[in-house]
């Protein structure tokens, strides 16, 4: 994952209140930990240890258990993502159509293997199949989907997303 230095946690009061509200609602739900982590990640964008501690405390499970679940599933991230989250589909349909090359080109242009750029603007991840195989190879930038890609389109797409 990210090889970058740790970004200091700076959650706001509003975020903390929202988290408390979510956790209150999950108090008597069976198997609440996963939904709790999912909603916490929606609020903060990632799951810093400070947030995991709150979840562990309110749900009455150990921090080790929370950390264990948070690190097991690939959708949970312990480090923040960039302002622009770039994902390249490396599902089979995209892979046989050359998405590996698209990913390599993004690595080259962003200057990172994966994770987040130093200026926190872009983060890059290889994603699992997102299900629009008719558009293969596919990349996403936040909610925008770009399909039927070739290597030379990458620079133009990145240019649309500036700090």
């Amino acid at each position: 994952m990210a090889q970058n230095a740790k970004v200091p946690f700076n959650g706001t009061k509003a975020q903390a209140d929202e988290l408390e509200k979510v956790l209150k609602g999950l108090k008597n739900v069976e198997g609440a930990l996963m939904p709790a982590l999912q909603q916490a990640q929606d609020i903060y964008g990632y799951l810093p240890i400070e947030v995991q501690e709150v979840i562990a405390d309110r749900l009455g499970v150990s921090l080790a258990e929370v950390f264990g679940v948070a690190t097991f599933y690939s959708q949970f991230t312990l480090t923040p993502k960039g302002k622009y989250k770039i994902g390249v589909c490396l599902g089979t349909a995209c892979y046989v159509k050359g998405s590996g090359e698209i990913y390599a080109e993004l690595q080259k242009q962003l200057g990172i293997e994966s994770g987040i750029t130093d200026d926190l603007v872009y983060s890059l991840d290889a994603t699992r199949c997102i299900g629009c195989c008719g558009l293969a190879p596919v990349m996403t930038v936040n909610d925008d989907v770009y399909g039927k890609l070739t290597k030379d389109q990458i620079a133009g797409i990145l240019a649309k997303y500036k700090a």
Partner: protein
Amino acid sequence: MNYNELVAIKERALKAMGPRAADHTLKEIKERTVLVCGGTGCTSGKSRVILEEFREEVAKAGLSDRVKVIMTGCFGLCALGPVVIVYPEGAFYSQVHPEYVHEIVESHLVNNTVLTKYLYKETVKEEGVIKALNETDFYRKQHRLALRNCGVIDPENVEEYIARDGYLALYKVLTSMSQDDVVKVMLDSGLRGRGGAGFPTGRKWMFAKASQADKKFVLCNADEGDPGAFMDRSVLEGDPHAVLEAMAIAAYTIGSDQGYIYVRAEYPIAVQRLRIAIKQANEYGLLGNNIFGTGFNFNVEVRLGAGAFVCGEETALMVSIEGNRGEPRPRPPFPAVKGLFAKPTILNNVETYANVAQIILNGAEWFASMGTEKSKGTKVFALGGKITNTGLVEVPMGTTLREIIEEIGGGIPNSKKFKAAQTGGPSGGCIPAEKMDVAIDYDNLIAIGSMMGSGGLIVMDEDNCMVDIAKFFLEFTVDESCGKCTPCRIGTKRLYELLTKVTNGTAELEDLDKMEELCKYIKENSLCGLGQTAPNPVLSTLRYFRDEYVAHVVEKRCPAGVCKNLVSYSIQPDKCKGCTACARKCPVGAISGTVKNPHVIDKAKCIKCGACMATCKFGAIVKG
């Protein structure tokens, strides 16, 4: 809700749905329906914008009372997305841009002239007449049963599902069938699990019914993790009530009152439509308490996955719903005895459920009349990769791979040669050209070293390296192995390392034997299906494409020109015009030569990026 109310809704909704069947004989058209595909493929291609444009343009043209604009689920032909169909003509507009909408409304909806230039070419007859969609190559051989409502109804409107006989099967079961009756129908139908393993659905239900407990659960596995498989997502996006109704039927049969749908978080549209469907079904009294006044209660909750392939395995899925790391546990005890929260549980796949209501309404014999001796009914495949008609197809079991690829799929684009089809995702295998005439069913696929899996079908052509593909899948399983058992955790890693040696050109022939031995060990000793099937991509490629492995090992050559370490680029002097384009493009200055004279590549400097080959207009650069 009672029977009369249900039928009244059905009649009302049928009328409201208007002409949604292709009718070419109409002389005068009073009403039209515009269906815009809202599947993930088309949505990625801006079909939401197209939907809004249509609504706006229709209103502007003053046609709002005569033209309905509706967003549906997937039509199947994703390669041509975004797709719009206008009924009653059945005009199939393909690759629609938002800018086309004004023109289509003006010509087709206002002036009654179908805009042939934007139609799917296959549907235009020579004389300019539209051919019905089910006469085209893509749809002709299909038999849409699990997908019967996809692309037909508005998935966000329960009444349209009711119009298509929705919830009648649940009514029938609750009011006129015993639990044993339902089990018998399911057993007689021969329906087998569509998630991959093919376990008879009726037996699963029978076992769970026989278990005694104060609480039982009905689960739906919508954790469709196979890369390149999207049939479950399409059912959820296009016909979510079919799954809910079937879960309620299952719950009645085994004596449960609570269901969970475990769905991938990567499918936001499916999740949203499921939530809408559950809400509407509750409001109509089709879920919840005292359904149809029979005293039967059933509630459904959606739980999201978080990106772990192993959670498609039944025991891992259950511990994940319980809020833990999704690690499988040994069986027995089987879930039918001890499943979610240690209670008897059944887990069926989305596509399996999509067949259930139809079986109840039409009878076991009707279903069993389709398919092969041991595999009944139909199967949905997600066709992808090097194929013209990428998309979703549903065919009777027993259809051959050749029919699917050459007839329905329209063959391989760019006049390339078919090399292999991969079924079953990371658990399956590659089927070579000489097996293309095998009738596809559960047992035949296993016999040729692959498996049905959930239905992903990825086509590969001569440009794909089979060793590289095997390595791709192994990388996936290494990454997704949960780490609980050693054969899978360490075995797949070692196997991946051996494959890397092959693609690097550092392997020796005996490494191939080592790989086979390791595969056998992993298969026999892993705890769950993930590990037990992880070696299949390697074993099947070793079986059918051993010559490619040998070429990598002995000749240090990648025949498909994919494995970078084994590829070298050179310029053919007789074809090179000396235009200097490649030399200018080369990022490391490895190409030298003077204008109008053949150039050469310095192989010591070359980083094998392939930029020169892509630039050359004369086909003078070859790799090999």
